[in-house]
Each structure stands twice: as structure tokens, then as C-alpha cells.
């Protein structure tokens, strides 16, 4: 996939991003390994001496202390984002087409009416990625418990997208390149 991902505009400049292609046969093992390679590169760029990201018992990647990070992948590309000093980071990349039925499942009527084009500036895939990224950033907050990513609510103010769940907000940035949408959520 010939896509050059970059940090979306507005994200703190000390945030680092790295990508790694997923080799054939593009299965879960290859996706996992590519994600860890991307995470090691993002950690190196952020100045972390520790570049190992083990998997916690719940399946989440455990980044080194002081370097919040997140990993996402498709069948062909893995991406990792690290934000030194942040409380939590979430990243998501999506290439799948989001059908109107799927959009209706994950987006509330208000979100569809105000955020999707033509009234809003976003595509269904961008908002899907935004909710997934926000979920990863918020899911580590113990008080919120276990929840489903589509319960997160999206709002826009002054051109900025904010996700929230049970009153806990996190800003989200999205951008699209070619046939891929990319979202980053950083909680400080």
C-alpha cells in the first residue's frame, strides 16, 4: 500500500508516528509483528530507550512508562503513535467501506446529522476511526469499566472533534489518505 501517513494537523508536535508494512500472508501473526515493529520505531523517535511493547493479559499493548502509545493495523499496514508524557493514546486506521447500515449502527442520529457531509466535514469511515481511536485512549481509564466503542459520543467545536464517554473527553484528529482513514486520540 503506497500510503505516506503523517500526524494529522493540530496534534502536538512531539507526537511520533511510525508505519510498517504487513508481510504476506497478512494474517494476525504478521499484523501483530508489524505493529510491534512500528511501535519500536515510534518509541525510538520519541526518545525511549525501551522499545519493547509486550501484550497485557487483556490483549492491550503495554508501552514503556512515560511513553503512551497505541497500535493499529489493516491487512497490509501497521501504524503506531507515541506521545511522551500523555496519559493515553489511541490510534486507528480503516480501509473498509462503511455502509449506511454500519454507519447507522455506530453513529447516533445527531452525529450522522451534524458531522457527516454535507452538513459536516467527515466521512463515515473517518468517524468510525475516530470512535475506535477514542475508545483505545479511554478504555484504559479504570473508572469507565468495559464498554463498546460505538457508545462513545462525538462532538465538534471550533473545527475540533472531541469524543467522550460518561463525561470523560478526549480530543480526536482525523485525516484520510487515498483509500485509508486515520484517527489519533490523545488524552493528557
Amino acid at each position, binding site marked *: 500500500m503506497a500510503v505516506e501517513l503523517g500526524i494529522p494537523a493540530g496534534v502536538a508536535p512531539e507526537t511520533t508516528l511510525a508505519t510498517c508494512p504487513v508481510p504476506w500472508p497478512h494474517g494476525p501473526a504478521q499484523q501483530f509483528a508489524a505493529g510491534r515493529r512500528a511501535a519500536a520505531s515510534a518509541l525510538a523517535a520519541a526518545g525511549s530507550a525501551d522499545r519493547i511493547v509486550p501484550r497485557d493479559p487483556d490483549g492491550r499493548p503495554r508501552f514503556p512508562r512515560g511513553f503512551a502509545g497505541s497500535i493499529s493495523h489493516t491487512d497490509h499496514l501497521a501504524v503506531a503513535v507515541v506521545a511522551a508524557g500523555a496519559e493515553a493514546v489511541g490510534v486507528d486506521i480503516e480501509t473498509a467501506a462503511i455502509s449506511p447500515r454500519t454507519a447507522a449502527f455506530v453513529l447516533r442520529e445527531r452525529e450522522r446529522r451534524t458531522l457527516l457531509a454535507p452538513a459536516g466535514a467527515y466521512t463515515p469511515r473517518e468517524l*468510525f476511526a475516530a470512535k475506535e481511536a477514542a475508545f483505545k485512549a479511554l478504555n484504559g481509564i479504570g473508572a469507565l469499566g468495559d464498554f463498546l466503542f*460505538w457508545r462513545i459520543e462525538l462532538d465538534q467545536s471550533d473545527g475540533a472533534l472531541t469524543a467522550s464517554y460518561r463525561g470523560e473527553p478526549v480530543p480526536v484528529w482525523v485525516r484520510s489518505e487515498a483509500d485509508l482513514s486515520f484517527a489519533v486520540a490523545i488524552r493528557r
Partner: protein
Amino acid sequence: MSDTAAITTDEVKQRIRELLADLFGSDRSVSDVPDTVSLREAGLPSTALVSLLVAMEDAFGFEWDDDVEPEVLRSIESLAGHVVALRG
């Protein structure tokens, strides 16, 4: 299948596997996942999970409640158990 027909857990699990095969085609790492293994850990992306949930609404004639517990959506077995409980 009618909304009132009795249905077994095995029948629901088989139908869910058929839906997964429809969604994933030849990707047997997902369509052959064991009943109790997490679908996400088996490699099912979130977009595909939502597509499966939508397809289940059509196949089994129900709508997912907003407050469904995440654990219900974990595996083929937990999904099937939910459908059977609704139809019971």
C-alpha cells in the same frame, strides 16, 4: 426460519459461521475460529464485527440493545447464547 421457531445453540453457531464466511470469504483464520475464542483476538476487525452484528439482526430477526454487554459480543459461543436466550 421464523421468529417463533425453536432454535438450538448449535444451529445459531452454524448460522453465525455462515455469516462470517459470507463476510470473509476464504479467510479461514476467522471463519474457522473456535467457538469460545475471542473474535477480535482471532483477527476480526471492528468494521467486520459491526457488519456481523448487523447481519445477525437480519438473520435472526432482532435488534441489538444499546446496553448489550461487551462480553456478549466476544465469541461465536457468546453471540449464539445471546440469540438463543432472546428466542427462548
